[in-house]
């Protein structure tokens, strides 16, 4: 099923190539040119992902836009790309977010401009690589390599405590993924010397190895998601990262972990996934309720949104591990929607930070008086963050709650508390920042959004509204793949069961 044009390769390598070009030729003196090249690169990158949607066959659960070439003979590893209903939206989301990030840093970043844009462009290509790799080794290479640009982004353009945050981010996530590497090599051997992820889907594995493999994957992906209690790197990283870094972290990087659960844990070790689903569900519910409460008491806006991200991602993992189509599809919808909303929230905070240079809620008040247009958009995103119907935030949460109630009423009930908690922390923060009298002189001097900022807000708002009002294009794409995934996850892969099935 090879396509004539290697769209996926283009989507990966165009951003990376433009990033390298900036690294090689750019300098702070030619910042204007650098920005234009970065924008051109990201727009071109977005453009080449569009055929992935328009040309996508929603009836098929199989891989599409496949590219396969031998890569490393010794490991029997291939440069094997392809997307299915689970991953195609994330490729588009990544390319879209990159454009937003490039625009978001336009006037704000004045120091080492080429390196800034190069980091984001390279990061974007690598993340698309993660979503489209269907070779285990290729996946791992992209997955790990994303750490390098993010480490630089946080460490160079971050806030006060950026060095600590950068190290914590890097080492924490590296710890998780190193064990996954051992698991991948293990799978390579049990599958008879193959690195293809879909080859592993059909490999029978005994229960004890399955549990160990599950735990190894869990370490890698749970840290990335992040799930309670390995979430502590995220608030630090979010708070210290520059606005663009926060947007990418929340919108895409967290999804790498959740996506990993779908690609690896559920289909490769289904028996262990069922056996340990209780653990994952419990941790997810803790994330929803406890982290929701933690978000409530934050005084720093970025920290608040960071905690809200953890709570929302708890919903995603919950949806995946209740093993019904509603839950899994809901989890994926929630991931995409959270990509737009969290990106928008961090952008809004960034807009205010650029004017007042503070992230403290207490330093604001009455922003609506000085920035009415901004306040309207911020309102929309805060509402979406709390899961208001007609915004994208509602769709995913509603689907997951439906799925959860079907699985177990009480789990559904606990999960549903997010609607209360989410509204509480989002709207209370919004009230304190935006409403009321103008709090101080700095707020009084805030100028409303300029054309560039307005453009970004409009783009994000359109995405949030569209997905909330008409989620069908999103769910249609994933339905077939979700059904197939659940079918895989429902089949026991213990050697005895596999033998009975005649494999």
């Amino acid at each position: 099923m090879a396509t004539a044009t290697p769209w996926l390769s283009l989507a990966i390598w165009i951003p990376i190539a433009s990033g390298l070009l900036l690294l090689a030729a750019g300098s702070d003196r030619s910042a204007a040119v650098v920005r234009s090249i970065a924008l051109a690169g990201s727009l071109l990158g977005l453009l080449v992902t569009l055929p992935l949607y328009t040309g996508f066959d929603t009836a098929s659960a199989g891989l599409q836009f496949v590219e396969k070439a031998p890569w490393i003979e010794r490991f029997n590893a291939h440069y094997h790309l392809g997307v299915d209903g689970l991953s195609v939206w994330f490729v588009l989301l990544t390319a879209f977010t990159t454009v937003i990030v490039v625009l978001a840093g336009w006037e704000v970043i004045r120091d080492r401009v080429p390196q800034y844009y190069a980091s984001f462009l390279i990061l974007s290509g690598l993340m698309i690589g993660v979503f489209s790799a269907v070779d285990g080794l290729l996946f791992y290479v992209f997955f790990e390599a994303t750490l390098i640009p993010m480490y630089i982004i946080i460490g160079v353009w971050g806030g006060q405590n950026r060095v600590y945050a950068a190290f914590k981010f890097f080492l924490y996530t590296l710890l998780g993924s190193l064990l996954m590497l051992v698991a991948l090599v293990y799978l390579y051997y049990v599958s008879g010397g193959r690195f293809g992820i879909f080859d592993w889907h059909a490999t029978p594995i005994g229960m004890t190895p399955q549990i160990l493999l599950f735990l190894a994957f869990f370490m890698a992906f749970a840290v990335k998601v992040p799930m309670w209690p390995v979430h502590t790197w995220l608030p630090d990283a979010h708070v210290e990262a520059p606005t663009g870094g926060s947007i990418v972290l929340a919108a895409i990087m967290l999804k790498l972990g959740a996506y990993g659960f779908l690609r690896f844990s559920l289909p490769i070790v289904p028996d262990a996934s069922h056996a340990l689903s209780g653990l994952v569900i419990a941790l997810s519910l803790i994330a929803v309720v406890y982290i929701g409460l933690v978000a409530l008491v934050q005084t720093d806006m970025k920290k608040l949104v960071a905690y809200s991200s953890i709570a929302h991602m708890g919903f995603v993992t919950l949806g995946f591990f209740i093993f019904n189509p509603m839950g899994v599809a809901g989890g994926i919808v929630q991931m995409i929607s959270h990509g737009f909303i969290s990106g928008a929230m961090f952008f809004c905070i960034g807009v205010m930070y650029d004017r007042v240079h503070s992230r403290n809620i207490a330093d604001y008040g009455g922003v609506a008086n000085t920035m009415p247009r901004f306040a309207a958009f911020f309102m929309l995103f805060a509402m979406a963050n709390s899961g208001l119907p007609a915004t994208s935030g509602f769709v995913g949460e509603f689907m997951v709650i439906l799925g959860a109630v079907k699985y177990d009423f009480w789990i559904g009930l606990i999960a549903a508390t997010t609607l209360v908690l989410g509204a509480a922390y989002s709207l209370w923060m919004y009230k304190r920042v935006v409403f009321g009298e103008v709090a101080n002189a700095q707020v009084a001097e805030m100028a409303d959004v300029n054309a560039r900022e307005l453009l970004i807000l409009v783009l994000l708002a359109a995405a949030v509204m569209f997905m909330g009002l008409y989620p069908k294009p999103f769910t249609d794409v994933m339905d077939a793949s979700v059904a197939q995934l659940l079918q895989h996850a429902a089949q026991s892969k213990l050697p005895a069961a596999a033998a009975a099935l005649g494999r």
Partner: protein
Amino acid sequence: MENLNILATLPEIVLLTAALGVLALDLFISDERRNLTYVLTLVALVATAGVTWAFLSYGTVTYAFGGMYVTDPMVNVLKLFSILSVAVALVYAQSYARDRGLWKGELFTLTLFALLGILLMISANNLLVIYLGLELQALSLYTLVALRRDDARSSEAAMKYFVLGALASGFLLYGMSMLYGATGTLDINELSERIVEGQTAGRLTLVFGTVFVVAGLAFKLGAVPFHMWVPDVYQGAPTPVTLLIGTAPKIAAFAITFRILVEGLLPIAADWQQMLVVLAVASLLLGNLAAIAQSNLKRMLAYSTIAQMGFMLLAMVSGVVGGNVESTVNAYSAAMFYVITYAITTLGTFGIVLLLARSGFEAEEIADLKGLARRSPWYAFVMLILMFSLAGIPLTVGFFAKLVVLQALLGDSLQGPMLWLAIFAVLISLVGAYYYLRVVKVMYFDAPAEPVAPIAATTDMRVVLSINGVLVLVLGLVPHYLLKLCGDAMARALGG
């Protein structure tokens, strides 16, 4: 096999002739025209590399001097990388050595003789020839460390290197004599045949001999607990000499380890593998932990070398599992790949140290790299690649080096001690990541300490250093060819 076959030693002949030529010619060259010696040395190296390349593409296994000397694809690959790394080291050394009065004929001739020793070690197929090659290499290097004879730290390092190195050679020689006593032969091939056929005087002598040999080899590799010389010598030696010690001799040490333990003593692999496990684990642990505490870049790299050699040794322990020798090619070619990529990466890191040094300023503290990303974005980027490669993060070749070792280690024994060893190895490399990251942090996150002079380096050094950095990246994207080269060469060496 009884053939003299003198043509097989053509690389050594070319190198020896050239070394003698450079030695004689340099007497008539004044200090101002020393560049001539430099160019001649490079020409000699290129000629030797050319001959080796021709041998490699010819691809046969040839014995010479009645089986004392062997040349096969593996030998030629290792030789080629040794020669190249020495040539690159000389290019990097240029301005540093000139500024410090080290730009003398001795630097070139001793380097060439050290390389001759290295080539001999790689090709030796006889315990005594191995020893002779080793001594030629070691004596040349001792002298090179002491080249700055008015520098106290240099002299101390030379003294330490010499005393401990001589001790190690003594160990090795003593072990060899026991092997000889047990089997009655110095020939590597006969050694293993006689052990297999049971023609040994006593197992105890054999195992004792092996213990001493392993201790001597561990010294040369710098594995814990025989690592004490490494940090002091790395720090005390003039940086170009540190660079020499850290690259080609490691390749040679791998070669003789392979030759003695694998080709000679494979039948008693179970005995020496246990020892290597202890050495590897101790090296990984101590190397990585001690590196964290270092503020001197050269010293940190020394401890990092100890840890890297520990990782390489892990591949050496995974060749024979329960008497099954099927995975030997896989395991030992993993070690070979590891040591070659390690040499390439180390060349670059010390190259950066040399690049930043100026007259009167060594640039060997980690703090001296402060704000390099502002001063020189390109070389900071090169150093970033090198550091991530040493840490084993993907997109660099270091990741694949670690991966082949892991793959070899896990082998088919998915349960049991090897699995735990693999988990230990990846977790300890997390500790390693910390201090490599710290270097990146200093370069990228910190502001330059004071207004510093721009980087002054010769064009050839800039070009070679850039290629070196890009190579680490390219091999990290497409490691296939080098992996295949190592795998094929190893298959020939073990099959033939």
